[in-house]
């Protein structure tokens, strides 16, 4: 792990998670008062009946503005976007988000792999992918795609995750740039783009 690597030129941080990830997100996101010119996109598995909960919670707690995701909404820095349930979230070259209702992948829609792979295609080395707690193998292929496209990969330390399976599966199948606990993930996000070289 390159502990002191400072990431610059990041345009998007995409965060994926499943069971137990809400707990991590609620510890991380409200602490972010300001980000250095990148968008945060969140893709978590949840029931359609919980649709509003995460948005409402984050809108209430977060200092950053949560932009509701509609099809072809422009992806702008310094906002948070949350993948709606029951759609896959994709990234277009025109830097907009688009949606797709095709088959579930890894029993999930949105699927983390689908969004990570799509973001990697558009953002390449300007992308950071973070995979949090979960009990499903979604996310691993996506992180591999991010790494292959030159992006940076962060995995939550399975020991700090409520459900270690998902981050563990990633670590078994690839070498993340960073393996961090919740507090460290927060510090990491705050450090991104902080020193332009």
């Amino acid at each position, binding site marked *: 792990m390159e502990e002191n690597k400072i990431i610059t030129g990041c345009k998007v941080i995409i965060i994926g998670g499943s069971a137990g990830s809400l707990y991590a997100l609620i510890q991380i996101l409200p602490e972010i008062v300001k980000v250095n010119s990148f968008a945060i996109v969140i893709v978590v598995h949840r029931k359609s009946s919980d649709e509003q909960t995460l948005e409402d919670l984050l809108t209430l707690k977060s200092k950053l503005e949560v932009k509701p*995701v*509609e*099809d*072809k909404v422009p992806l702008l820095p310094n906002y948070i976007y949350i993948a*709606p349930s029951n*759609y*896959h979230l*994709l*990234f*277009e*070259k*025109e830097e907009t988000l*688009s*949606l*797709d*209702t*095709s*088959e579930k992948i890894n029993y999930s829609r949105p699927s983390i792999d*689908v969004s990570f*792979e*799509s973001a990697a*295609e*558009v953002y390449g080395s300007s992308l950071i992918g973070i995979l949090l707690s979960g009990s499903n193998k979604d996310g691993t292929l996506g992180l591999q795609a991010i790494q292959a496209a030159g992006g940076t990969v962060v995995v939550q330390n399975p020991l700090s995750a409520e459900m270690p399976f998902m981050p563990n599966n990633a670590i078994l199948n690839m070498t993340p740039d960073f393996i961090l606990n919740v507090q460290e993930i927060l510090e990491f996000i705050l450090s991104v783009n902080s020193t332009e070289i």
Partner: protein
Amino acid sequence: MIEDIELETLINDVYEYYGFDFGSYSKASLKRRVNRIFHLDGFTHFHDFLSKVRTDPEYYKKMVDEITVNVTEMFRDPSFYMVLRKEILPLLGTKPFIRIWHAGCSTGEEVYSMAILLKEAGLLHKSILYATDVNATVLETAKKGIFPLRMIKDYADNYRDSGGQQDFSNFYIANYGFAKFNEDLAEKMVFSQHNLVSDNSFNEFDLILCRNVLIYFDNKLQQRVINLFDDSLAILGFLALGTKETIKYSISTSKYKQIEKEKIWRKIK
């Protein structure tokens, strides 16, 4: 994943050989769909896939069926159907005749849901439901009104959440794992092939539903389609889109008034 340039070649070839223009579909989704069928059908070289598409019209048809996303359900988004039931149908009910267009109806679950609402409101007899899709295979299924029985429990829940009060099993007969919906529901349905990319308006409607179709189109094509709907809507008619779709990038919103929080707009001028 296939390359962008390969996707472009496929789009050009399909246009040249078959006249179908995928050029304005959302690229991210289209690329995944093409990639999926390419691998599912066991191809390893893109040029083999291309020549199969070019030379085998049957395969081309299958490919189009596979890359268009046909996932649908009955009473998808119950709160939307609740608003139709409570707000929209009572307004339409004052008309002597109600013309409805389901654009991109897929296998028809949405059309049968609408017929149930109309029947319950006592309006089905004076309604006509045009249901169109570009994919001829899904239209064949839609015409039959036969849906998998394993889905029915979810549909019955959706129906109830949309304000439905009857026993959902009144609407179909179960047989060998399938539910066949009552024929009186289908009496006012007209199914036909219509391509939103290239075909024009064919009637004037009081309500147009086009849900979860525009997400597959880029901004330019969305604009074309919204304008096609605008040309096809009577004054004071309604346009209903999917829960994450909007008209705001496509047309002057001063012509339309949005109904509550739903993706339903009324044409006001």
